[in-house]
Structures are given as C-alpha cells and as structure tokens.
C-alpha cells in the first residue's frame, strides 16, 4: 500500500483537542485521513500542535531519511513561530496578542491558549517584536517561509516523491503591526500599511518566489489575496468557533477537497 506523509501544525494533528472547548469532541477525520482514504493511501500524520514551519519541513526530512513514502502533503503554518533546536516551539506572537488583549480588552486579539498554558514565555516577545516591527528586519521573515516550501520540494525531488503544499494557519499580515502598535506604541495606521506593503514586496522579491511561482503543486499560491492568492479556510463556518479558529469537521473536509483538487490537477497534467 502506498504511503501519504502529512506534515503540519495543530491544523493537521490527528488527535487535536480544543483548549478553548475541552468538552467538545474533536475526533472528526482530519484532512490527511480524508485524503488518504480517498486515494487509498496509508497515512503517516506528523501534524504537531505549535509546530513552526521549520519543524514542519524538518519533520518530513527526518521521516523520509528512514522511510519510503509515495506522496507528501504539507499544510504550512504561521511564519511567526520559532523552532528552538527541535526542542521547543516558541510562538512569540501569541504572547504579543495576549498583551494586546489585556491592554485593549478586545477579543480580536484572542489567543490560542494551548501555546500559553503549557509554557511560560521563552522569547521576550516585546523585544523581538521591537526588532521585527519597529525596524525593517520583519522583511527577513518573508523569505523564510518560501525557503521552507522550496526546501521541502527539494527533499521530495531528491526522493522522487511528489509534494503538495497549502497554507493553513494565519499569514503574516497587517495585524502584526497593529498588535505591535498596541503593545509597543508608535506605529501609526499609515506606517502599518507601509510596513505591510514592504513585507509583501520582500515576499515577492524573495529569490524563492519566482521559483515557486512557476510550480503547480501549491494550492492558493501566492497565498495573499493582495497578490492574487487564496487561503483555504476563509469562511467562518470552517472553523470550530469564534474563539477557536482551528478547522471544524467541515473545515477539515474543505482542506482535504483542496488537496485532492490539487493532486488531481497535477496528476492529469
């Protein structure tokens, strides 16, 4: 039987449990299992809560160094997570949002509490946000995600295995600067817009962009609506609730449908 390797964060985790709704039964089929069933593949699901994109790429590499797989599907996550030596996933932005919520009282800064309950902050999110959002350093993160996608493509090609990509969790958007402004102060709306434009420019100018732009194995490319891209879970109905944005059963089905669409298109070509 052929094997599908699925990598991603909590959006992919087969055993996801909602911290916000612990009473909820979340044992509905996740996208890897739906895709695997449809294709008749055995599924290896390495989705892990809080995984950074670096972890996602490296988890595939580690698995493929020892095991034969026939297809890889990656659901990429938020670019503002740090892989600390494979030992810890630092979601520093979640802490920044928590601070913004306590300052404003607004639910728009609602956080995924599972990142916050388990560990105390490791990265000083305020210092890092200052470095990233008050200077031009944020543009360096733009290329990071694209590099991860390309690297996984190279891994796939080196093993002669097709790889399919989609972006699941939140992208780096205007809200980064908005949140940073609430916590750090001093970033006007105009500056926030300018910074996001600068980010998008860096994204497009990344040497990896032009390579990925020619590929057909990425659903929703180049992800950003502003650039003509698409995110798969735009509809609120596809999420668990207003306070838990993880995909619901319907959302998981949508993700699976998009992957199947992408796989079919590529196999037909």
């Amino acid at each position, binding site marked *: 039987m052929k094997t599908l390797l699925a990598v991603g964060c909590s959006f992919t985790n087969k055993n996801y449990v909602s911290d916000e709704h612990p009473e909820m039964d979340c044992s509905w089929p996740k996208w890897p299992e739906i895709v695997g069933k449809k294709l008749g593949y055995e599924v290896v699901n390495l989705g892990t809560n809080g995984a950074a994109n670096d972890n996602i790429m490296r988890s595939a590499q580690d698995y493929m*160094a020892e095991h034969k797989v026939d297809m890889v599907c990656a659901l990429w996550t938020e670019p503002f997570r740090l892989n*600390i030596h494979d*030992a810890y996933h630092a979601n520093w932005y979640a802490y920044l949002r928590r601070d913004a919520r306590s300052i404003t009282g607004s639910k728009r800064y609602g956080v995924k509490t599972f990142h916050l309950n388990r560990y105390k902050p*490791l990265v000083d999110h305020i210092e890092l946000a200052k*470095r990233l959002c008050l200077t031009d350093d944020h543009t360096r*993160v733009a290329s990071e995600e694209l590099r991860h996608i390309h690297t996984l493509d190279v891994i796939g090609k080196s093993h002669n295995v097709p790889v399919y990509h989609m972006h699941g969790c939140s992208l780096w958007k205007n809200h980064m600067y908005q949140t940073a402004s609430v916590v750090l102060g001093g970033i006007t709306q105009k500056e926030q817009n300018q910074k996001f434009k600068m980010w998008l420019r860096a994204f497009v100018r990344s040497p990896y962009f032009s390579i990925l732009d020619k590929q057909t194995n990425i659903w929703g490319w180049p992800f950003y609506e502003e650039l003509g891209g698409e995110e798969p879970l735009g509809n609120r109905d596809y999420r668990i609730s207003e306070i838990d944005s993880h995909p619901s059963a319907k959302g998981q089905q949508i993700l699976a449908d998009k992957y199947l669409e992408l796989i079919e298109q590529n196999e037909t070509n």
Partner: protein
Amino acid sequence: MKIVSAKTTAGITDLPTVPDGRSLLAVGCSYTNEHFRSSINPEIDCSFLKWPTILGSQLGFDNVVNLGRSGNSNDAIFKQTQDYIIDNNNKVDMICVLWTTVARLNLHDIDNVNWNATYNSKLRSSTWPGSLAKQNPKDPFTVKTMRIFNLEKFTAIVENNWIKLAHEHLRNIFMLNQFSRYNNIPIYHMQGVPAYVPYLSTLPGPSGPGDTYPDWMKWYNYKRKEYLKALMCSKYFNILEEQTNIWGWPFERELAGTDMNSEFTEEHIISEKDKHPNAKGHQLIASKFMEIINENTISSRL
C-alpha cells in the same frame, strides 16, 4: 581572482555582483569571515589571507564568494548557502563549508544566538564568586541577545533536550549536501569550531552548574558520552558515514574523527586567549580542504 565577501552585519543580498567565471562559495562562522577582527586582541592585524582565498587561488577559481560571518549558526550556514545558490543560479562551481558549534540558534534570519557564550557570560556576571561577580557582560552581541531571550528558561529547555543538537547538526550537513547535489554542485565539509563545546557541560546539572559541581570531570565525561551516543544514533550518521566529501568525519576524537580546532597548535592561533586561526591556521584549513578535494577528484577519475 576576485574576492566577494559578506561584512559582519550584511545579508547576502548586500553582496556586490560576482563577475563571470568559475566561483568557489565558502561558508562558515568567524573562522571563515574575510573581515575577522580579534575582539580579544584588537591590536593584532588580522588582515591575513583567509582559507577561502588561499583555497580559491590554489584551485584556480576566478571568484571566491565568502559568506563567513562571525557568530554564524549551522542553521544560518545552511540557509545562507541555499539563498546564495538560488539567487545566483549556475554561478557556483564548488561549495566549501566550515561548520561551527551546535550551540547557536538562528533567530528568524535576523540574528544568531550563541547561547552558550550568552549563558556563560550571564553566569559570570551574576553568580560567580570574586571579582567576576561584579562584571556585567560587556560584549554588545551578548547584551543584545540577552534582551530577546529569557535565558534561564532557554537554558532549562535546551539542557533537557541538548542531545538533540547532535542530530540537528548532522541533519544540517545532510540537507546542504542534498541541496548541492540537487543543484549539481560539488560540496566539501569540515568542522572548524568543535561541534560539541565543553561549555555544554557547564550548564546547570542536577546538582547545580557544572563548574561548581563536585565531580566536574565525571559530569563532563557523562555529558560528552551522551552527546557522542546521540551523534551515532542519529539517522543521518550512517548516511554521512558513507560519504567521502567530509574531512575529519565524524569530527569527534573518540570516534576517530577530528575538527580544525583540534588540529591547531600554538602556531596556528591568534593568541593564547583568542583561538581563532591566524595566517598559518588559515593555511592549514585550506590545505585540509585541498586534501579532501584532491582525494575526491582522484577517486572520481579512477
């Protein structure tokens, strides 16, 4: 021969254009940095030829692109190389990598955290007895890093997972190797700074910091054995073991390997306090790269 190099703070996008011709790409940390200056002995002129320039000249390359940066992490070495190749498709003819210590972390491509140095610096400033206790870390890099990390927590996390560093290191070598093969570029590896540094054993153990632990040597030997075991258990060990393009493999003396630092004698280093390679040290590094390149070239002809 044209030498194009990255200044300490410059990203690779700031590099001048490389002229046409055959190019050698050299990557690494301060052992590779074309602009290295000794912070311990600022009076010493360090403008001697670095190993990439010596090697490039010996091999007859038209250009040498030197991406060596002080404080570079292995992750950044891997990613910088990848970025350069992608940005300069078909313009690189050989890659030589001088890998560094495993105890550095790439922070979103904006910084490399040398967490051992940082931790030790903090330890000296806060808990060590005598005159050292009154000193604050003065190194601006350390001060900047300390602001971003909660060092106690960071150290606690790494301390409980530190043997993962061995696997991470080998994976970086494997992945860069895979990437260069994919791009059809020959690549050669060597370990400059020891991958495992004795500082790892000074991390707080079950009975407190290694330095003040009563059986310091016992503690050190235990930690080192753990690291070596982890290295050999990594799934990448056996893969790299079969390769011929790694000088000094598997880098650790107990496993019959070596690193450049261990090859240096007094005449190869800047001073007793600054163990960075001097002019002779750089010649030695270049000669070891030459050795492995020759071996591989001869065996490919046979």
